[in-house]
């Protein structure tokens, strides 16, 4: 079994004395692709931010985070408008005073299909290109743990699927660990090897589901019979989370 990168036991989170999350027991193992899913307002983003260390637990009996490098992709691309795409991507390296290798940068651009766009400024990019750049920036430091908060939610369906394909390929090639918040059941199913359902108010983990899909996934996977069967299963699970509240 792969080692745990992140472990939380009995995690509680309160905002202004209102409990948002209760009794969170979760382990993220090296190489996991975890999707966090649940009805709107259940605290998916809060849980992601807690796992990433951007928020602190109100109480917990045990929290462990291995000293692993992390990166975060926000809902908005968050590119700096005065920097070119390439300069935006190399920003984490500059901050962490790591050597900047042009070949490495070019490969990062290629990985997200942004070859030749390095000299463009953010205002010259489409929404999909900005999100790709944001992904490339998050991956440039080769993080062990990548957190993603509904990164593709503002994109149109074809661009979204294209980016899902690229993300899945990157994860298969690099075998890093990804925790991904989404509203989309099909996105969660296509990308993740673990789908964690949150439900209730305050929210807790309702189900930790492992879809029965092949590890290698591509466009064909989305139209396969097994994909639809699994989609039906997680749709039922999601319906139950809504019934709980």
């Amino acid at each position: 079994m792969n080692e745990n990168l992140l472990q939380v036991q009995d995690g509680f989170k309160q905002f202004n004395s209102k409990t948002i999350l209760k009794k969170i027991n979760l382990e993220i193992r090296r190489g996991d692709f975890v999707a966090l899913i649940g009805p709107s307002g259940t605290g998916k983003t809060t849980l992601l931010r807690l796992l990433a260390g951007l928020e602190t637990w109100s109480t917990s009996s045990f929290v462990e985070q291995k000293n692993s490098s992390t990166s975060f992709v926000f809902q908005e691309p968050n590119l700096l408008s005065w920097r070119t795409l390439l300069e935006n991507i190399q920003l984490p390296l500059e901050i962490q005073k790591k050597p900047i290798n042009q070949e490495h940068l070019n490969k990062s651009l290629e990985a997200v299909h942004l070859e030749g766009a390095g000299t463009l400024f953010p205002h010259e990019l489409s929404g999909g290109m900005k999100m790709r750049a944001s992904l490339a920036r998050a991956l440039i430091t080769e993080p062990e743990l990548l957190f993603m908060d509904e990164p593709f939610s503002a994109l149109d369906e074809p661009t979204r699927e294209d980016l899902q394909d690229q993300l899945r390929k990157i994860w298969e090639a690099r075998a890093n660990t990804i925790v991904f918040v989404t509203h989309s059941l099909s996105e969660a199913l296509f990308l993740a090897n673990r789908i964690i359902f949150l439900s209730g108010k305050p929210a807790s983990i309702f189900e930790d589901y492992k879809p029965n899909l092949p590890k290698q996934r591509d466009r064909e996977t989305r139209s396969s019979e097994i994909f639809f069967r699994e989609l039906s299963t997680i749709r039922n699970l999601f319906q139950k989370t809504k019934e709980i509240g």
Partner: protein
Amino acid sequence: MNRYSFLVTLLILIICEGLITLLEVPSYLLPLPSKILLEFWTSKNDLLAALLETSKHTTLALFFSSASGLVLAVLISLSPWLRAGILPLAQFFQTVPIIAIAPMLVIWFGFGAPTVIASATIVSFFPILASALQGIESTPKSSLELFKLYKANRIQTYLKLKLPLAIPWFLNGLRISVGLAVIGALVGEFIGGGGLGSLIDSARTQQRTELVFAAVFGSCAIGWILTLALDLLQHTLLKKWLQN
């Protein structure tokens, strides 16, 4: 100034010329536009010397207020203690009329350029401080979190994020301060001597209303040229930077 505003200005001047002549308004009250134009030519040496002096004072004051405003904005944003201590004081000084403290400036700095520069710096300082501070503090939370995740230190966060983001705000403050700095310089010159302020004052005592008007238009030109220079700087150097 575009073609239409030039035509409108010309039309207003022609109407003024006609009305003043028709109503026989004494020239010491309201001179004819043609006489003001003539005065520009007759007193060109005095006007140009005064204009250059006031321009120099105004530009120096803008430099000092920009530098001090920006540095103080950074310091205030760094420390809640400084914010609580300095910001209310700066806001209080903003409300003190410059004309009321100008005589004190003469006592402190003596007659001439130092008083004029101090006067213009005082009035142009606050908009720069307020705008730069607002710019620094308007940094999106998600960008700050991004820098936090990459373990950026305070200097990196300021140099690579907060200050570049504050530049458009700072330039907006500077644009407001240009007009105020000209006013501050003229007030300083009324009291401390020199430049267009002194020229206006002496022309007034001699009832040379044409020269007063010519000097007033000269002071407008300083503000106009400085704003134009600021626009030019913004559009050429910072075009890409400010595109979003």
